[in-house]
């Protein structure tokens, strides 16, 4: 049996390489939306927060989890919406 950490390390390594390849291709024109879009993705902690907010086991963990859910949701919803607003403004000549 391969331990889970090995798999996670593999996934981390591949994702980092992939991230560099992808982001290096984004043109300067789109750097502000990229920044806010990446910021929205960093709200992925929401996924971690959800499982901790719903355990019902510990009072403190629950409270902390719920607060984390709210904060991460602001990050996610706000981030994607503001990025979309920006990108909607980018137009090609004549369209």
């Amino acid at each position, binding site marked *: 049996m391969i331990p889970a950490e090995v798999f996670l390390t593999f996934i981390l390594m591949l994702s980092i390489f992939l991230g560099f390849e992808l982001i290096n291709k984004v043109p300067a024109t789109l750097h502000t939306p990229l920044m806010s879009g990446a910021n929205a993705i960093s709200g992925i902690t929401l*996924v971690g927060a959800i499982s901790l907010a719903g355990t*019902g086991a510990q009072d403190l963990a629950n409270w902390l989890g719920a607060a984390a859910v709210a904060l991460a949701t602001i990050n996610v919803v706000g981030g*994607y919406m503001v990025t979309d607003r920006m990108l909607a403004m980018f137009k090609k000549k004549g369209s």
Partner: protein
Amino acid sequence: MEHVIQYSYVVAAALFIYGLKQLGSPATARRGNMISAVAMLIAVVAALLDQGIVEYQWIALGVVAGAVIGGAAARMVQMTAMPEMVALFNGFGGLASLLVGWAALVPGAETFTLVTIILSILIGGVTFTGSMIAYGKLSERIGSGAVLFSGQQIVNSLIVLGILAGSVMFCLQPDNHLWLYLVVALSLVFGIMAVIPIGGADMPVVISLLNSYSGLAACAAGFAVNNNILIVAGALVGASGIILTQIMCKAMNRSLANVLFSGFGSGKVEATVVEGEIKPISAEDAYYILEAASNVAIIPGYGMAVAQAQHVVKELAELLEKNGAEVNFGIHPVAGRMPGHMNVLLAEADVPYDQLLEMDDINPRMENVDVAIVIGANDVVNPAAREIESSPIYGMPVINVDKARTVFVLKRSMASGFAGIENPLFYKDNTRMLFGDAKESIGTLIREFS
């Protein structure tokens, strides 16, 4: 069910990646952002299906509250306030990481898990307060200057030592919550201390770096709770932040260390002697020259954002085009206060993105330009970067407006730009200064045209 959840994460990760790929071109970028949002939705739904979850009311409350606040903020923010908005959101993300790390602490956790928990808390805390200070400086709620005081280094070293000691003790005695509280408190303080000595205009670099950190915090959390999607998404964000940071530093010809530790832009204007004299011009005279021009380049900078002049700039460009001139925009990568700041503002004013030329595309054409109109830009057009070896910005790539036949510079005074240095451009023979708020000056020019 477990399989469904896990494979949903695979799908979500693939969509995040595909979305980022689509963000690589303006034509598909909006779709890319949508795809990324769908990926997030899938990941969240998969997390909700988790069988460990027994209570949904707290989650529902958090999601609704967060969505309302985030949605409202995103809708109302002005395009010129984008940098501070990103800082604010990033801060919330950091605080969420801190709380997730804290909440993931269960009695009897393994050391490996404890390490990832403390990393999550630490990075999250620094990201939170650091972003808040960056927000304050950018929105000018707090002074935007670099705050430097004697003994600063010693204080910071003590904080770092405290964090290290607290973290080690926490891993050794996870049940003694004092260590946890110590690390939380110190990481919050450290976020503040790390950002106050950095000048307001360097905040974008800071935000980018903090954004990268928040990605790393998500990775750490992913290792703690054994979740692949956190690792993939976190690594993508981490890479994005690092690359944007690098791009900004390179375009400013400064090292990251210089940005973070030098207190650059803390207000001292250097005394270089510049020869030549300043030749102001009236809007009327400027109009006559513009009317005769057949090739015009517009170079916007931070002043255009301050004056909110993007719409009148677009109007002016249209009038010039109607008058038979070829009009191009030259965009420097660090013009303004975020990477790509000018692109967003001009896009807001409906300037098509194929009319926005990058520095390397406009520079070779500069010799054929009749009039270069510099609108609230200063450092990004400073020929000292090319000519004066002793200048602090020597070597920074700039837009060579001085190669154009005539240069108009629109600004309010002879004040220097962010870098706090003199600009020899203003004294060149072919330069004319059109003093005043950029929006008003352009408004006057437009009235002359009609």
